[in-house]
């Protein structure tokens, strides 16, 4: 029996969820809407509440307030075994006393399927994850990558309403991780099942997920596609967590006809005359938005620019990263590396330019 598209994809809605352990406020008023068929990531540093939220959807944690809905149906009061929400555990949680086949058959047996139906479905699930022929092995006889596939097969074979993946790639080595995440994406699209993927690795989330909820301190910071989040971070945390960002403290001062951003400890960034300047907030831009120009180049009115000196230099392969001293702070700049380029030495005076479209003002 084929395992694809047998079920209509389901929307997940999290409404006003609060959760505390004693004084520790782990989830604070979390609201999310995940459209049917999405591959959705909870992304954040460890301790941000992403796994807690995932386990709450699976029914292993109880919210103090709020509800979880699948296609409008409130599943909050249901125990884990009645939710039909498939979860793949970070440790895989394969039962060591059962063979691969018994592991995969478990959920079907619990659902009371007739024996003659279980066999073919287990075989189909194992085939889908590329483990045909290994059904008789014990989990301990498999490699980490194979164990991960068994865990996935064990969950999808029951065709759950939604699929929850708790850091599914964290126990794999770097090369395998890239391979498996692509397979995971393909499998998810083939099954069309709404999937939540918990990770602390932004690259993982960026490369395979349709949408990401960035979390920190138990709060959802921002939801969006990977590109939206990168280009338009809603706050300082998101800007700093996704990619590298220069977050610069300073004070706006008027500068004859224009406006400048004065950095404590000396140094200033001249802002373009046409810029929309907010009343407060900090200046944010990405290292690769900055270009270095000869110090004698006349400033363009549509760019921000500043004078500085090189404090350090790192060779990253495709790019060169310069650290520039600006007042008491450091500004990172990435320039593409081409062989034969003239490099700026430590201590060299340089002039840097940032296009107006790359400037962000974030106050939190």
């Amino acid at each position, binding site marked *: 029996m084929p395992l694809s598209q047998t079920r209509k994809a389901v929307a997940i809605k999290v409404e006003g969820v609060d959760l505390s352990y004693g004084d520790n406020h782990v989830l604070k008023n979390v609201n999310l809407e995940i459209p049917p068929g999405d591959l959705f990531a909870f992304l954040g540093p460890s301790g941000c509440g992403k796994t807690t939220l995932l386990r709450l959807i699976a029914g292993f944690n109880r919210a103090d307030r709020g509800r979880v809905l699948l296609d409008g149906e409130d599943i909050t009061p249901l125990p*884990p075994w009645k939710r039909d929400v498939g979860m793949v555990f970070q440790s895989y949680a394969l*039962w060591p006393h059962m063979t691969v086949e018994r592991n995969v058959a*478990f959920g079907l047996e619990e*659902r009371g399927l007739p024996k003659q139906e279980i066999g073919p479905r287990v075989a189909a699930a194992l085939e889908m994850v590329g483990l045909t022929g290994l059904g008789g092995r014990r989990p301990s006889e498999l490699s980490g990558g194979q164990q991960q596939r068994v865990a996935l097969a064990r*969950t999808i074979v*029951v065709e759950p309403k939604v699929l929850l993946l708790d850091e599914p790639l964290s126990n794999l080595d770097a090369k395998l991780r890239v391979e498996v995440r692509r397979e995971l994406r393909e499998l998810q699209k083939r099954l069309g099942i709404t999937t939540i993927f918990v990770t602390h690795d932004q690259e993982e989330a960026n490369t395979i997920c349709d949408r990401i909820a960035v979390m920190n301190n138990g709060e959802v910071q921002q939801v969006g596609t990977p590109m939206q989040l990168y280009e338009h971070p809603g706050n300082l945390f998101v800007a700093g967590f996704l990619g590298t960002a220069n977050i610069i403290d300073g004070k706006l001062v008027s500068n004859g006809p224009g406006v400048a951003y004065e950095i404590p400890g000396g140094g200033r960034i001249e802002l373009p005359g046409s810029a929309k300047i907010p009343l407060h907030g900090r200046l944010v831009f990405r290292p690769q938005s900055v270009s270095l120009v000869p110090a004698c180049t006349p400033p363009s009115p549509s760019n921000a620019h500043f004078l500085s000196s090189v404090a350090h230099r790192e060779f990253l392969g495709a790019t060169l990263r310069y650290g520039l001293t600006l007042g008491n702070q450091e500004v990172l700049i990435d320039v593409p590396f081409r062989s034969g380029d003239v490099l700026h030495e430590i201590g060299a005076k340089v002039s840097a330019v940032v296009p107006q479209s790359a400037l962000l003002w974030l106050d939190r």
Partner: protein
Amino acid sequence: MPLPLTLPRIRHAAATPGQYALALAIAAFLVLTLVLPVVTVVVVAFKDTTGGFTLVNFADFFGNELFQRSFVNSVWVAVLTVALATVLAMPLAYFTARFEFRGSALIQTLGILPLIMPPFVGAVAMQLLLGRNGTVNLLLQDWFGFTIPFMEGLNGVIFVEAVHYFPFILINVTASLRNIDRSMEEAAQNLGASGFRLFRRIVFPLSMPGYVAGAVLVFVKVFDDLATPLLLNVKDMLAPQAYLRVTSIGVADPIGYVICVVLMLISVASLGLSYAATAGKDYATVQRGGGGLTRRRMSRNEAIGAYAIVGLILALVLAPHAALLLLSFATVWSFSPLPDAYTLAHYTRVFSDSAGYIWNTLLYASIAAGIDVLIGGAIAYLVLRTRLPMRHWLDAAAMAALAVPGVVLGIGYLRAFYAVQLPGGQSLATFWVMIAIALAVRRLPYALRAADAALRQISVSLEEAAENLGATKPRAVRRIVIPLMTGGIVAGFVTSFATAAVELSATLMLVQSNSDAPLAYGIYVFMQSPAGRGAGAALGVLAVLLVGVCTYLSNRVAENGNGSSHH
């Protein structure tokens, strides 16, 4: 010339002459005190009157109706004890692992209590409480007109042994349950399993290795126990028969040795079975994390039920202790629910007449524990920190003592050393030092594992740093390794001391005169006559106190030791 691809390892250079000497000395000790006596027993069992090989003795054994019955009885008692111990242990283990239950601490503490008192000490007291004319049955007869044969014949042995040994199952199963990764259970819930199905399909199979280990330990202990059946006047079991043959017919009678071989075979087979059942199935370490099952609060009714079950079991557990205490203060306690009157006379008598038992116990147990700590520590060091060839054989030989029942070791000593004359004309087999050595050999496996565990926690680099700064090997061991192992060593000493103090099966064979006898022997002698019961109980109470205090101290030391090694 190609360069060698692997450099010779510099750490753990070849063993020094001193290490060889140490290993040889330990090997000699083990050969003399363990291998030789056991081999003697086996050889004698297969020897005919002319000294040739024969199976006649075994044919005699299996052709004899009494021995057939003894064999069946021993197996029956051991199996039923395991079953009853399981019934007592499982609910307690499950409650502690599954619920946020205030009774858990109580279970953990009181559940270990029976181990402090060997079963034979409480056996007679249990008869007074639960026997045909004991407290409970007298009350049942008065109130309801019926009695329960708790202590009739084999029932008594099963009952007393189960009440004493169920903690082995409790401890092992609880540890297994604690080590189950929580996600194992959650994955099953996530796939639709709950309640009893979840327990049957996931939790129970995962705790099996712990259960098997505990159950086999109980089986072996009960199968080998000599004193409990004897005190309950049950003679048709294997260990008592071996004892009776050798003490009544003499050390030359081959049947006693045949019984010993049978006892040993069953011990080895059980431990082998346990190893086979648990090897490679240490499920606890398959997954990272752990954390045990999800605990939940009990509902009101569940809590009432749980407390009722825990209360009942703990009442059973405490019954021998309570009865022993009562008996030690009783003037006369016979055919009445409670003693007629109370007195301190038994304690006075014990302290005035029988102080020798106490001193002998302190002496033997100290010597035994001292030997254990020295040899256990030395073997652990040789195995873990040197490249001595065949060093693992030392470890294996010392651990083999686990499979040798006390009665077998005792008979082996008698046979092997009987002909050896000391300068005073006394036989070596009856020299009191042999009692202490037999106790040391019996307890060595435990001391060795304690020393091994303590040494494993000490990084080799600490020792290497000392050598790097100029300390010789022996000085590095003395100044760095031994001080760091102190916690483990002291805990090992106290445990060996406490358990040696109440060990009886080997002692019973080796004690020749009352003046050489330790506490356990004294209790046994007193308990055999109704007139001596009070004094026997008083001595028993002292033994329990001694062991209890030691166990407490050993736990304290072990806790402190752990605290200091996690820095």
